């Protein structure tokens, strides 16, 4: 698929379902009767879908709240919001276990929450507090949740890819069944690190899933100007690696593609490159004036909102009722609100501990 300037919002969602939903969709609420569903959606049970939707809301609300705090001068630095890309983060990580690893990017809040991080500790980190994930030393661009398997956001474009290779080697050497999923943007695929990493992962058949979140732009450069092939997935063939490109705003499609890649990695089948075509609705960072794209393009993608699409499809398929959906959203809202309060009430680091943790003991 190519990156349409104006996405057809419901392309995948409205595609005729390849068959009936089957048994797995049965369960709570409105999903009792057998309504036509896409297999990708049918493959996900209600609990999984509810959790996924909840995470998408958490991400969205976390970032909207962070943004508001930033505007009010409560957070310093900059931040890179992934608003609009939630389905990619949540769908990709859906097949992962807690013990699996992810490596994230500068635009990493979504990955972090999707992998199970506590928004309260994330906010605390944003606010530079001592009890944040990084004790206030890392901030937005370096949030890591080591215990949850998030080996860290990264301020360096493509910085996580070589690290993923080592994680893959480590998993192999320790004879673990883990998988390492590494995220990066479309712009990152032009870094040498991308090439070196995919090559090594492939020759050594490492248990890695390379997830490219293609949101059409680097900072301002359209991927169509930054590379000569149509899809990032086209680059997989240079490594004899399976590559696929999916609608990154379609949770179920992303989850299906990711499941396949994760299963391949876990079973010794080697790495894959998965491209999720999506869009960031906000600017690159807080200083972006959107000079490089049109209002119309942004508007069209806003229509293609992943959360709304998922909700619409869940309703149409009678998997959830409107009330259930609102309750999922409200619960997320409450979580984020209390997370914010937690962060605000948290203690600052002691400036005398400036050089603490420079070296491990």
């Amino acid at each position, binding site marked *: 698929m190519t990156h349409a300037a104006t996405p057809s919002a419901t392309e995948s969602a409205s595609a005729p379902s390849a068959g009936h939903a089957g048994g797995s969709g049965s369960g709570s609420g409105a999903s009792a009767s057998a309504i036509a569903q896409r297999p990708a959606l049918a493959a996900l049970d209600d609990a999984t879908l509810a959790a996924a939707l909840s995470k998408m809301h958490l991400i969205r609300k976390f970032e909207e709240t962070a943004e508001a705090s930033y505007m009010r001068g409560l957070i310093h630095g900059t931040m890179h919001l992934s608003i609009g890309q939630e389905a990619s983060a949540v769908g990709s990580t859906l097949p992962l276990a807690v013990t699996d690893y992810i490596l994230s990017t500068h635009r990493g809040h979504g990955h972090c929450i999707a992998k199970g991080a506590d928004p309260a500790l994330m906010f605390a980190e944003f606010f530079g507090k001592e009890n944040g994930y990084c004790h206030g030393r*890392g901030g937005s661009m*370096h949030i890591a949740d080591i215990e949850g398997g998030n080996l860290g956001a990264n*301020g360096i474009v493509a*910085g996580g890819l070589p690290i993923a290779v080592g994680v893959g080697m480590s998993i192999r050497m320790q004879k673990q069944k883990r998988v390492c999923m590494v995220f990066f943007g479309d712009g990152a695929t032009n870094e040498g690190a991308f090439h070196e990493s995919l090559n090594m992962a492939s020759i050594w058949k490492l248990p890695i899933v390379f997830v490219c979140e293609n949101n059409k732009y680097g900072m*301002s450069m359209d991927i169509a100007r930054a590379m000569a092939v149509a899809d990032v997935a086209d680059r997989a063939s240079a490594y004899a690696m399976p590559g696929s490109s999916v609608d990154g705003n379609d949770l179920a499609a992303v989850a299906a593609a990711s499941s396949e890649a994760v299963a391949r990695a876990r079973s010794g089948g080697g790495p894959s490159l998965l491209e999720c075509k999506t869009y960031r609705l906000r600017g690159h960072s807080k200083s972006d004036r959107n000079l490089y794209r049109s209002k119309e393009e942004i508007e069209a993608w806003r229509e293609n909102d992943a959360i709304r699409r998922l909700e619409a499809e869940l309703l149409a398929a009678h998997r959830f009722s409107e009330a259930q959906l609102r309750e999922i959203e409200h619960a997320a809202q409450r979580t984020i609100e209390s997370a914010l309060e937690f962060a605000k009430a948290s203690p600052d*680091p002691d400036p005398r501990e400036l050089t603490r943790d*420079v070296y491990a003991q």
Partner: protein
Amino acid sequence: MSMPNDVADKATAGVAAAEAGTRELSYAEAIREGLAQAMEADERVFLFGEDVGVYGGAFGVSGDLFHRFGAARVIDTPISELGIAGAAVGAAITGMKPVLELQFSDFVTLAMEQIVNQAAKIHFMFGGRASVPMVVRLPGGSGTGAAAQHSQSLEAWFAHVPGLKVLQPSTPYDAKGLLLAAIDDPNPVLIFEHKLLYKTKGPVPADAYRVPIGKAAVRRIGTDITIVGTSIMAIRAMAAATRLADDGIDAEVVDLRCLRPIDFATIAASVKKTHRLLIVYEGVKTMGIGAEISAMIAESDVFDFLDGPIARLGGADAPLPYNPVLEKAAVPQEDDIVTAARRLVHEGRA
């Protein structure tokens, strides 16, 4: 006894006294004006880097240049730091005069190979038969809350590399004048700009003047202590000197401006007069540029003029932290300079 900055500046920088059309410009505007004048004057000059085009540069330095000079001379590149540094080398050795912007100086870690092994060495390795007239602009420094990978001051590394020239302008005036001199220079020149300085304002003449490479600027004449500062630390040193004057300490402030080559003569002359030396820089103190300045003094005849140890203030021995209070504490602030200078004068050591 003190002198206005620009007077002292011109005195050492050798800039003609009467300059027409001097306006207040920001540091970023001054760089942009320098770029525009260089591109107007010389077809070989072009600007490239990540998001320097329609976006106008991550820090707005290139601004409207894309619209003024077009996509053929203000070129957005893919995110490929090693590749674009090498592209600068290739363009430079075949007749062009590239100016490359690396979006944050931290990303130079990806381009070291081309800068250090190729650009710096080609002229020598090829027996003088090729030269590499390229300029790399690198926004550096902390203070923006961007944390450990977007806040470093790595300039000292390059002062260790023969074949390179390394600049650190602290004023809009120098930012423009040194840039134009760098573009004229037939060698690879790295210019470390400071992110916190982009919005600071100062007088900038309208013409395409040059500030000579390799000359420090005496920003304030004094008798009690020499404070050598680099980049934003030269600005903080000036503010500190004003406060020190209230204490009766008359500091001479030297803005290093160029880290390779180092203007030893200017520093030596100052220390011979003041007998005391404090060096202030933002990079990590250990192996920062102050180490070399101190060592140059300590191995020269200036040693005999010293009344006491040579003090250095530099970055903490830690990556730059995100938390704003820690971040401030990690690099020298005006107060630190005042305190260190006072102790050096009153107690003989900092």
